[in-house]
């Protein structure tokens, strides 16, 4: 195992830091497949909580306590035992709809994404669903998704204990306002201004006059992330850990 030098905090680490903060005080967060940034944040948040936070990292063989097969995550969510989860999207729109299926007409998508996974269900059942997408461009954050894998909001009468809480990108953090059914710019990452975010965002969102900078991880947390946590991440996401921290297992 070797670790390369990292001079300063990376964009990925800013995203991890922002998500880590959203998990404070929770009891149990689950992380799906193909979610290395949230996975890193969850493992870091667990370490910072002194073990109070449970993390179920799907696809991991060691950070996954489930013993009832593939269905357990979904049952567990419906039981109200999962406080937070993470979803991404090939496209995400201003009403927090996400598209994990493809671009263009369905089903013969001109660009096909992997598919909806559990999003159409978990988005409705887990109270704090954190959206994440590193690429923040008008191509990914669009006015309206081509295919709704999972809907951002639901009519009042529908059973929906869960829903979107925030959207973390490579440029900023949005919170989601369920009543207004739109995002609100919460903070911009170090070195990024509100104008850059506006330029890069394909949907309308609320923005207060004063927008703070996304607070980076403090140096102790950053050190923890780059040492112990990065190695935990590498077990499930070897490619990601190698690219981000030079961790090779």
């Amino acid at each position, binding site marked *: 195992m070797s670790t390369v030098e990292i001079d300063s905090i990376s964009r990925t680490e800013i995203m991890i830091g922002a998500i880590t903060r959203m998990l404070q005080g929770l009891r149990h967060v689950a992380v799906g497949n193909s979610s290395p940034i949230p996975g890193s944040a969850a493992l870091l948040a667990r370490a910072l909580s002194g073990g109070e936070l449970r993390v179920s990292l799907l696809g991991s063989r060691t950070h996954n306590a489930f013993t009832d097969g593939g269905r357990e995550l*979904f049952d567990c969510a419906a039981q109200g035992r999962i406080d937070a989860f993470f979803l991404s999207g090939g496209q995400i729109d201003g009403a927090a709809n996400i598209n994990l299926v493809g671009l263009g007409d369905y089903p013969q998508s001109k660009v096909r994404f992997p598919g909806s996974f559990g999003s159409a269900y978990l988005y409705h059942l887990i109270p704090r669903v954190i959206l994440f997408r590193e690429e923040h461009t008008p191509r990914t954050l669009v006015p309206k998704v081509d295919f709704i894998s999972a809907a951002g909001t639901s009519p009042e009468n529908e059973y929906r204990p869960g829903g979107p809480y925030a959207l973390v990108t490579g440029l900023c953090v949005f919170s989601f306002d369920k009543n207004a059914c739109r995002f609100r710019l919460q903070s911009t990452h170090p070195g990024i201004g509100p104008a850059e975010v506006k330029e890069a965002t394909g949907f309308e969102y609320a923005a207060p006059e004063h927008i703070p900078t996304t607070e980076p991880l403090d140096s102790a947390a950053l050190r923890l992330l780059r040492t112990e946590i990065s190695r935990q991440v590498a077990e499930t996401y070897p490619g*990601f850990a190698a690219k981000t921290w030079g961790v090779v297992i």
Partner: protein
Amino acid sequence: MHAADMVIGLDDLVARIPDGASIAIPPDYSGCAMEAVKALIRRGCRDLHLIGVPSGGFQADWLIGAGCVASVEAAAMTLGEQGIPPRFSAAIRKGRIAMKDATCPAIHAGLQAAEKGLPFMPLRGILGSDLLKYRPDWKVIDNPFGGGDDPIVLIPAIQPDIALFHARAADRNGNVWIGVRRELMLMAHAARTTLVTVERIEDADFLTDDTMAAGTIPALYISAISAVPGGARPIGLAGAYPADTAELAAYAAAAKTEDGFQRWADEAIFGRVPA
């Protein structure tokens, strides 16, 4: 059936999968019968309906690339860190396979309905998703236990003709140990025929051992078994051997084009030495 009759050769095992069969396969992190999939491709199987439980990965992409697949039902198709399965994505673009997009718990619910001999299972969520638009087989009713105006989705039973997977061990009576990978048990319960490859067949009875029994599918649900050591390579098998990431990456790179896939298959599946 006597346990002795359950253990057969790999070619005989895949001979039980008729053209046109619906076949449930586990995700890459569970227990994938990769060698059996190769044997199926060598046999020239056609018109399969693949059911990813709940997703499809390398197995599905190999079968699609080899022209064995007519349609797919899955919540996702992914090679994990290797990205989108390239033959799947090309087949979708060209309209060569029919895709029934689902969501993970709907696949589990459909299989559980079959496991219980039920016509359907209810499932929360999904409302507002375009998945519903393209799944006329999913129905929405008003929850009969609600106060009215509480729509809920019903997922019809998914009963695969075949469940195919790989596991660490079978015992002399045909019981198969799958540990915590209970989705394999669900598949075996739900399917009409369950075909399993295993690393080894042990001269033991797992059901008389309290600890082993807890992770065992009884022979009652198993149709046939082949001993295929390394049968999950290059995907890997938890507790046995890791994924061969170099080989997986090589596949993902090669399969970007149809020609690349053919060259890969010639060597990796048909064992032809490249010219």
